[in-house]
């Protein structure tokens, strides 16, 4: 029985990684068919990667991010490695931000999410444009990026709360 707290603690530590894998396999497409949910679709993986690489990099390995990108590519049908590179470029941008920031302020981190999103989506679009014949829906992509940016504070507080109250190091 004394193993239970250890297992619980391990699972709580692994939650960001598990969430990242879960959302890579499944994007709640069925739920998007209900009502106007599709309009508010956003990229949860990007929020998760940005937050954890910025605040708690020890909880989210680059190897996991790379693998999740490969899974997303396979599920969506884009060229293999595209999403991985996009997520890794987001991680690179975020690591750079973390290294060059002295004080953590939520609003500043929220607004630096704009160039981070732009940078990673830009790389994605360049690869999809040049390495595949897939045409994409710019409006949907813009909507998705906008709502990813808009919902960031909500997840910021949620993840912060989770890290402070559930993870005991």
């Amino acid at each position, binding site marked *: 029985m004394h193993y239970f707290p250890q297992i619980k603690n391990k699972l709580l530590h692994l939650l960001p990684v598990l969430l990242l894998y*879960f959302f890579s*396999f*499944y*994007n*709640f*497409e*069925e*739920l*998007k*068919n*209900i009502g106007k949910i*599709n309009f508010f679709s956003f990229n949860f993986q990007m929020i998760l990667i940005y937050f954890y690489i910025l605040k708690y*990099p*020890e909880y989210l*390995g*680059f*190897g996991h*991010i*790379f693998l999740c*990108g*490969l*899974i997303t590519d*396979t*599920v*969506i*049908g*884009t*060229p*293999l*490695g*595209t999403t*991985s*590179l996009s997520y*890794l*470029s987001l*991680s*690179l941008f975020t*690591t*750079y931000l973390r*290294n*060059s920031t002295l004080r953590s302020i939520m609003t500043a981190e929220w607004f630096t999410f704009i160039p981070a999103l732009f940078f990673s989506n830009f790389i994605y679009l360049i*690869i*999809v444009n040049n*390495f595949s*014949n*897939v*045409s*994409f*829906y710019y409006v*949907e*992509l813009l909507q*998705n990026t906008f709502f990813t940016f808009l919902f960031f504070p909500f997840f910021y507080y949620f993840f912060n709360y989770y890290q402070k109250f559930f993870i005991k190091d």
Partner: protein
Amino acid sequence: MPDNRDDFIISIRYALLKKGAKQKFSLFFLILFSISIITLDKLSLPFMNVSRSIISDIIYRVAIVSSKPAKIIEYSIKMANRHINVYKNNQTLIEEIELLKKQKFDFAYMQSENKILKSALNFSNDKSPNQIFSISAKVIIDLKSPYLKSILINKGTRSGIKKGMSVFNKDYLLGNIIETNYISSRVLLLTDLNSKLPVIIENTNVNAILEGTGKKKNLRLSYLPENYIIESEKIIFTSGKDGFIQGGIPVAKTFLNQKNKIKIKILGDPDQALIVRVTNGQVD
């Protein structure tokens, strides 16, 4: 200025090469690895195709399991809606059955007349029985990302499915196969931007190309004759000009939207497709 540049380079180098706490791989290595995968995938080397096919089959199976909770929620909402609207739906169905009964006889007569005329003109494009291929498949995942509107089915090359085959749902064309794995395949929907289908408009001899725009109720017709104005309530059929898909299959319909603009909607609903038929161009 040079100091700032040095700081920037040091920060970037640090971000790229430093593994950090509990990181097993450096970003630099993983970025290089991603670029090499993209390049190998683009070159379509035989070993890459095989490995992609195997990875896809495994990932699709896991994706089915992970999509179950949301499918259950969707099913419950649909069932609840169906129960609420049962009386209204019943009335509509009775009216539809009456109408269809009347149309059935006309249709049978026209079909036999069409066959006779085609054989008289030696114009038949029917396939011989040994050319006919038809298999049922289950939709395992339906994905509509900002990049691709596609569905995944649970049959692949093991069942004889090949790239380019047509996929039907309740006699309506849904799309065609664009990717085949050993036990799964990807269907590109007619609503996708990349979908192009040669069609003919009802009661006219106007040929056009039906293109997707990403929306079920907003397809587009291109290469229409100059000054041609499309009317509402017209059925759009496949013309069979691509030499693969049989002509005369209904695919879309024109209609007036709420703003009194003529739009084109797809007849088969990909969101409702559960079991589909994969054929080599003909309707079952």
